């Protein structure tokens, strides 16, 4: 899949990569230095995932890879072949909001909304991870990689705890939405 080339790096040839995004196979031709965030937004039109700091410090770009929350700004798209990528566009299923989305809506867990997709992707992952405890302190710790400059943390925490009993994996396992 990955092409080794001795050509000067600025002219590195494009690579053919097939990303599996929200259960769909999406073949792409990419330069090696394209990060997953830019591939999702600029090449696949999935602009729900946001670019904040672009350095792994703010969490706005959080997506799930194989069910785990990661910073898509720090992940080369070409290294994601064969992995299941879930973005905020893949959270709802069969016209039903994901329990985390519903809870964010009901708890008013945002102001400007820019960090919200990343917050929800992290929240949906932590609710499915039995290694993370269910206390408020443990949820806050697990969510510390998602910054909210409006300061909606109180309602974000409440929304996550509200969604807990209704949680389901965000990862649709490839069966579409």
């Amino acid at each position, binding site marked *: 899949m990955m092409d080794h080339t001795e050509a000067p790096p600025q002219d590195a040839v494009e690579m053919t990569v097939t990303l599996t995004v929200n259960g769909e196979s999406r073949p792409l031709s990419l330069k090696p230095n394209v990060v997953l965030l830019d591939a999702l937004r600029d090449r696949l039109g999935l602009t729900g995932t946001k670019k904040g700091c672009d*350095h792994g410090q703010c969490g706005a770009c959080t997506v799930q890879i194989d069910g785990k929350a990661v910073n898509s700004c720090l*992940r080369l798209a070409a290294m994601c072949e064969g992995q299941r990528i879930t973005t905020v566009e893949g959270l709802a299923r069969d016209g039903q909001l994901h329990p985390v989305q519903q809870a964010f809506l009901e708890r008013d867990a945002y102001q400007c909304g820019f960090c919200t997709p990343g917050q929800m992707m992290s929240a949906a992952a932590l609710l499915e991870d039995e290694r993370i405890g269910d206390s408020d302190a443990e949820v806050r710790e697990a969510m510390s990689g998602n910054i909210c400059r409006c300061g909606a943390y109180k309602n974000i925490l409440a929304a996550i705890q509200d969604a807990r009993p209704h949680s389901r994996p965000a990862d649709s396992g490839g069966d579409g939405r």
Partner: protein
Amino acid sequence: MRNFALTSAPAPERAIAAHGPRREASYIAGGTTLIDLIKLDVLRPHELIDVSRLALDEVERLADGRLRIGAMVTNTDLAHHPLVRDSYPVLSQAILAGASTQIRNLATTGGNVMQRTRCPYYRDVAAACNRREPGSGCDALHGINRMHAVLGVSEACIATHPSDMCVALAALGASLTLQGPDGTREIAFNDFHRLPGEHPEIEHELADGELITHVTLDTPVAGAGAAYLKLRDRASYEFALASAAAVVAVEDGVIRDVRLALGGVATKPWRAVEAEQALDGQPAAISSYEMAAEAALQDAVPREHNAFKIPLARQAIVRALRDAATASEARQGVQG
């Protein structure tokens, strides 16, 4: 971000052959440090070799009681591994005290050992930095050096080693397995990172093309308690101002075995050898821990903005030793 060629390696031998003895090649695993620094133009590799798919993701107990960790085990998986939680809790605590969930999900054991300093002058290509550009000077010496090191420093570099995981490894004792073009060798973890000296650009003992394949922890200290204490500007997702990893075995109120390492205050993961020697055979009491803290920091060199780290580290040492000793005594209470 500058472009590069990207090669995927299905086996370590192939990765090492693809890397070759070229300075401009780099392995990529989790990429959480590397991609960040390429975006900042601090690192400019011509070629990346993707080692993230190598079958180096096992954690296994060896027949001699040591624990062998594959270099591709993620920080999250290592922190939560039952063998680590049970036998090396200080490692689990240290990893979970570092970075964020998202970073730990990508970052690997080998990559954490290789992570670069967070010195803002290293990360800024407009600044003078001997580590990034040998001979250019060090803007941190007389700059904003509040986050910088007080131990293991030189006039060429005072950059802090940022890792939490590595502080636990320094305390526990470990060896690294390095595979290269000429075969495989082992190196003690505490000999792997170099002090900056006059050549801060040489950060470790890895030869050209060598790849870390495993980290093997020494056998657990019998009857020991452990503690990792990290002091920082905010409660989560922040680098240490000072941290201490302590593993202490107490017997009849006397310290029988102690391992102590420091983070946030030194240019490499810092095993506090002088403090360990000072504690040997001493009573498990605050006065002993205070004496050990003095010994650990006797050679500290403060700069304009970071002198506060010396008393802060002293307190971190005292508290970590106290908590580890208390845990050791509690274990013996249960067993006795």
